[in-house]
């Protein structure tokens, strides 16, 4: 691991992104627009007094899901390009360590994700009056960890795609089941045993759980930190798997 090479990689990935104004706009603006849609979707719901708005629950979870989905897509396509254009093979003939590359990517896209979630969280709080007990800083933290998770999965999945067309097909396989089972649509304790068991090993589950902790408690709970640790551990594990897919030599 060489810190300077990692930093050079982060800088390179960010300046590639910087030349792509449309992608930056999509990354920063789309989540805010979708949040607006969710807000107006539930605008006219009639609630018994004391029951929190659906927006406060669903909107909050979406803040964590956006960076996961977007960074998964962005990373898997970028990494696939790196594999097919020959730049990856060329890089692997230089002294660069695989970890420098992977963490370089991780840091670059996490910075983007932090920006994205700052915009989305600000919109949720200030425009739509998102009402939760915990501090917004925790929401941003969880969003960034989710982005790292998306980056790790994207790096890993790109090894199994030969074309960009195949790469986007991994989204229904890898991302959609996690969104379905994370507790957004049905609370996890109301799922049947099999689905609940599956949801127990899916990383997005832990971020939704963590957000529910933030929503209910003013201070960080130990359960929140457990969830954060689980997400961090899973992300690291997937990054290690991704490193194994980077081969210096082909057969």
């Amino acid at each position, binding site marked *: 691991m060489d810190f300077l090479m990692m930093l050079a990689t982060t800088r390179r990935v960010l300046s*590639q992104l910087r030349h792509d104004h449309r992608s930056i706009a999509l990354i920063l603006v789309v989540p805010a627009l979708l949040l607006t849609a969710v807000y107006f979707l539930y605008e006219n719901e009639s609630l018994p007094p004391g029951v929190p708005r659906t927006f406060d629950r669903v909107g909050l979870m979406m803040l964590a899901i956006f960076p996961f989905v977007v960074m998964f897509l962005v990373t898997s396509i970028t990494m696939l390009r790196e594999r097919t254009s020959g730049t990856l093979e060329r890089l692997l*003939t*230089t002294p660069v360590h695989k970890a420098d590359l992977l963490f370089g990517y991780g840091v670059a896209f996490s910075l983007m994700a932090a920006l994205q979630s700052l915009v989305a969280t600000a919109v949720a709080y200030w425009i739509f009056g998102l009402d939760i007990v915990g501090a917004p800083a925790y929401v941003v933290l969880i969003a960034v960890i989710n982005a790292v998770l998306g980056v790790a999965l994207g790096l890993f999945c790109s090894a199994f795609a030969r074309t960009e067309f195949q790469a986007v097909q991994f989204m229904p396989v890898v991302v959609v089941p996690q969104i379905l089972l994370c507790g957004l649509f049905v609370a996890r304790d109301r799922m049947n045993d099999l689905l609940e068991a599956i949801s127990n090993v899916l990383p997005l589950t832990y971020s939704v759980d963590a957000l529910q902790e933030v929503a209910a408690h003013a201070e960080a709970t130990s359960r929140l930190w457990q969830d954060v640790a689980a997400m961090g551990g899973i992300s690291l594990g997937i990054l290690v798997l991704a490193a194994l897919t980077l081969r210096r030599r082909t057969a």
Partner: protein
Amino acid sequence: MSHLAAPLGTARGQDAAAVAASALRVNLGRRPVLLGIDFKIPAGGITGLLGPSGSGKTTLMRTIVGAQRIAGGTVEVLGLPAGTAALRRQVGYVTQSPSVYPDLTVEANVRYFGAMHRKGKTDVAEAIAAVGLEPLARRKTADLSGGQVNRVSLACALVAHPRLLVLDEPTVGLDPVLRADLWERFRAMARAGTTLLVSSHVMEEASRCDTLLLLREGRLLAQLTPAELSRRGHSSNLEQAFLAMIQAADHAGTAVEPETAESARRDGRLH
């Protein structure tokens, strides 16, 4: 002094070969591509790797830079087995299709690959100047012409100042003036001690090399100098000479064919 110089001298003598292959066999998947070849590339000169397309030139180059697993035999590069981690600092590789980032500027590309070798601003500027792209340094690579992108890719290898530079068809798509410039550059690098291995299928370029490796259908047809090629092929036109040698080999080789992996392995050991 002499009793000390002797062992050092022999050590240098062994180092004199920048690349040494013996009975080298390489498969791509299950298809045998290199069928047992032996050669030595002397240090500090330009070696041309020539042969028709599909003869195994790129596979041989990828093997030398350590990107390709070998199926049998050995390749030593600068005294170490190809693919050894320490070689990554000393071997530069320019792929046939330019492998650079189209969405970065010329400078950013060279800077990034330079950073992988801990090279800074001066080396980056030097490498860009060496390929004549200073006026375009701040342009996005995607906006350049094909030949210019090739030169960006070359600069990304030059920035590391490798001891061995492996170039896969570096002059494809360049106009004659640039091609001549680039060969002068290669010559200057060789004079400064760099070993260059340059593949080409333009036989006219063979005359600019010190030695030639003639590859055909996964076998080494000959290793010789351009002068020897024109003598053995009975033509001062190297293209004609190469064709004549191929035809002569075909006539001589009809009895030995067909080629199978098995016979190749046997041949490799017989060498």
